[in-house]
């Protein structure tokens, strides 16, 4: 059985979903502003999300969330009833309130206090919207002390009823029993609301000695009897130590449906008298509603259900068409990770088998070969399924970025239209988490530096509102995330001048446009004339680049003067497996990711040219491509590989630069499981990770781009890049 702590985790998970729905709803409302077509149900749904967060938070005594969401929902309630207009200004406040609510939830979840100032300002804004400034901030809902609610270890030590300790009429320690005289006359509606006086009497009986006398005088003749109408009245006497409040509480629900008069007469001696008076002391009255129970349709005997939870579990999983709630199973991420590891071993095992089979000269067409193919397929399918367990849509990430855009545009004083595309694209959960920082930085940059101020945009013949677009999608086996703006593009002369001024590059260096753009990734580079509060937070694009690299990804920049800039992040689909080309480099077995290999070339000697003493280029069709000798770059040998024997792997970087990686020979192509080198060791330049081959030996997985940059001492930019990339 779940404990209160488990439910609290559920609450936070649910909050994530609710906040997502809240943001969706607000976006829908925002989209409807121009046409003035508001769907009440949308506003209602938004209201419900905040309401649910409030309700859950109240259950756990999370007062800051309760207080804030109460103000928030008050405004939404007014909007729902048409008293607050959903215009641009108001919706912006709601967006900010949603952001703050998310912060509050996060703060509660991590148990870290949140700076109250931001919340107070928003509360004031919400209150202003609600039209009544001061009083809303008062505590709204009594918050129970959940810790005292009972032991949550699932035992059944349940208090039957609260015993009043506060009542002490005599002022002495011991409560003194009193006799209460109760008269109850039912209204006609009592039964219609599902009440049955017998239950009330039973509860009274639990408080002390109860006698009940029914007054049947109002009953009509049997023929005229309407079984659904209660026409009885009762006189009760209760000898109890309970307080009058306790009694009133029992009658709370029938208030208005029955006339209840309670009189307390003090003195225990009354008890004896009262016992004489009535016919059936200590016994519940015969159920006056017995006639109704006799109706078989009213209460059919329920079938015994031993699996009490089964039907409800199914309900939980059922998707309601109106809302399409996510049905989820909570799984420990560690469990998923070990599953991924085991499946990885399975894939390795499969390749070991393949290898030994081919070593044993078993024909591929044979029965065993066929079975092995099947084994391989199954292993890959399992792997795919397991991988997808870790996959998550980028939707939440994008919503988070929408918030960054709102905040940044406000501080920068720029009007920004934020567009997203491909929200349903799924990426490994870990990757999503680690994309937050880099994307935040790129977006801030795009708004702060990329977009022009509104007047300059007008002067350039553009709309005063700039557009920033965030998109995600799958492209040739990788996930590509792009941030583009329609700003002025990179001011290349200025960028180069800054790099020279900061001593990052030589003044007379000739650079291509793309090389200039990449200067932004140099450590310590910042193009802002004044370091603003936004992008100048001590981290530069170099950090973005290295963060993305750590994920096995690449960042590219594509900029068109006057038209805008696009940052393109390309990431592997999973962090766990890649398709590799297994190569021999000076006797060492290494792996090159196939995704980066454009083609493999066994070069014609006439296509190879020396540049200087050690550098070589290869002519590929009409282009000259620099060659990187992997054996030398990794110091496995001092001399380049034999030109007559070498194989060139043509790789392409994110910047569309081509390099030829020279290896001794290609051994195989296969899927390899990525093993971190950094966990137990650290980063090795030019090496992305390690893997374990069929023979159990470790092979290093090459990072072609980093390797190429290490090799390229001819370009000052590239050598700086490789220094920055480490």
């Amino acid at each position, binding site marked *: 059985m779940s404990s209160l702590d488990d439910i609290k985790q559920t609450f936070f998970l649910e909050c994530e979903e609710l906040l997502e729905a809240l943001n969706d709803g607000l976006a829908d409302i925002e989209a409807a502003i121009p046409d003035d077509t508001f769907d009440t149900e949308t506003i209602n749904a938004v209201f419900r999300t905040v309401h649910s967060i409030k309700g859950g938070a109240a259950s756990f005594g999370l007062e800051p969330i309760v207080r804030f969401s109460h103000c928030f929902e008050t405004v939404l309630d007014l909007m729902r009833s048409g008293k607050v207009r959903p215009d641009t200004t108001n919706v912006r406040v709601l967006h900010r309130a949603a952001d703050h609510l998310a912060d509050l939830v996060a703060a509660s979840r991590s148990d870290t206090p949140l700076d109250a100032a931001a919340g107070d300002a928003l509360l004031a804004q919400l209150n202003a919207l609600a039209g009544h400034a001061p009083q809303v901030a008062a505590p709204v809902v009594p918050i129970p002390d959940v810790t005292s609610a009972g032991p949550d270890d699932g035992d059944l030590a349940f*208090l039957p009823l609260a015993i009043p300790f506060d009542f002490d009429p005599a002022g002495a320690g011991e409560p003194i029993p009193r006799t209460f005289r109760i008269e109850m006359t039912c209204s006609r509606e009592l039964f219609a*609301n599902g009440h049955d006086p*017998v239950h009330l009497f039973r509860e009274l009986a639990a408080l002390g000695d109860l006698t009940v006398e029914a007054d049947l005088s109002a009953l009509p003749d049997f023929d005229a009897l309407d079984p659904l109408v209660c026409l009885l009245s009762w006189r009760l006497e209760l000898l109890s130590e309970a307080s009058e409040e306790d009694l009133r509480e029992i009658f709370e629900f029938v208030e208005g449906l029955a006339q209840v008069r309670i009189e307390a007469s003090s003195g225990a001696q009354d008890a004896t008298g009262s016992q004489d008076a009535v016919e059936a002391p200590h016994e519940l009255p015969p159920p006056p509603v017995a006639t109704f129970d006799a109706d078989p349709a009213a209460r059919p005997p329920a079938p015994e259900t031993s699996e009490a939870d089964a039907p409800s579990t199914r309900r939980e999983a059922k998707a309601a068409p109106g809302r399409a709630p996510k049905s989820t199973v909570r799984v420990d991420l560690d469990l998923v990770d070990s599953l991924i590891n085991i499946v990885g071993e399975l894939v390795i095992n499969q390749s070991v088998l393949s290898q030994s089979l081919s070593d044993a000269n078993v024909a591929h067409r044979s029965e065993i070969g066929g079975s092995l193919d099947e084994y391989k397929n199954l292993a890959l399918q399992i792997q795919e399924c397991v991988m997808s367990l870790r996959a998550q849509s980028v939707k939440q990430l994008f919503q988070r970025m929408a918030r960054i855009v709102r905040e940044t545009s406000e501080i920068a004083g720029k009007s920004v239209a934020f567009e997203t595309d491909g929200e349903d694209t799924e990426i490994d959960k870990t990757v999503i988490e680690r994309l937050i920082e880099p994307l935040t930085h790129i977006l801030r940059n795009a708004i702060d530096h990329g977009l022009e101020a509104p007047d300059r945009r007008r002067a350039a013949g553009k709309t005063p509102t700039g557009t920033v677009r965030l998109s995600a999608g799958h492209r040739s086996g990788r996930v590509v995330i792009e941030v583009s703006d329609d700003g002025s593009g990179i001011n290349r002369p200025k960028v180069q001048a800054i790099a020279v001024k900061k001593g990052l590059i030589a003044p007379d260096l000739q650079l291509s446009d793309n090389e200039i753009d990449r200067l932004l990734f140099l450590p310590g580079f910042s193009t802002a004339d004044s370091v603003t509060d936004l992008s100048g937070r001590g981290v530069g694009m170099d950090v973005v680049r290295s963060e993305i690299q750590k994920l096995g990804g690449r960042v590219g920049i594509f900029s068109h003067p006057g038209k805008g800039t696009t940052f393109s992040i390309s990431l592997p689909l999973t962090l766990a497996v890649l398709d590799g080309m297994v190569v021999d480099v000076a006797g060492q077995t290494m792996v090159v990711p196939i995704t980066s290999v454009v083609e493999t070339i066994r070069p014609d000697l006439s296509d190879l040219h020396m540049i200087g003493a050690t550098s070589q280029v290869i002519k590929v069709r009409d282009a000259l491509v620099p060659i990187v000798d992997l054996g030398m770059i990794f110091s496995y040998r001092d001399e380049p590989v034999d030109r007559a024997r070498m194989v060139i792997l043509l790789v392409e970087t994110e910047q569309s630069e081509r390099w030829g990686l020279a290896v001794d020979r290609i051994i195989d192509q296969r899927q390899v499981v990525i093993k971190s080198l950094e966990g137990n060791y650290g980063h090795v330049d030019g090496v992305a990770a390690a893997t374990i081959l069929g023979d159990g030996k470790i092979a290093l997985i090459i990072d072609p781009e980093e390797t190429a940059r290490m090799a390229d001492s001819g370009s000052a930019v590239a050598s700086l890049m490789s220094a920055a990339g480490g």
Partner: protein
Amino acid sequence: MTLKILAIDDSRTIREMLRLCLVRAGFDVYTAEDGVDGLESLDEVDPDVVITDINMPRLDGFGVISAIRAAESRASLPILVLTTESAAELKERARRSGATGWIVKPFDDVKLVAAIRRIAAM
């Protein structure tokens, strides 16, 4: 016989809170996540008590109560309303719509069970 309770609330957190509290008290607990879902579960579960939230997608708590009361077979089924407001006005509305009783969220385990005892045959 163990009392069967159908709890209808769109918040998973509240559903689980209710379940924890009610299972501990020895009830059989069934849940539904909105009004429509709840009505659909009625025949299957055949509850002794229904606990319902008010503000829910598709069909709200008042709708649930009217639908239950409209069917003759369950005209007197005890129904508790879960509400975040303790305002008298809301109680009055709940009563008018046919609710048997109400519980103010955040609910207290003891009070919830006491409320059930007051309306249900145990």
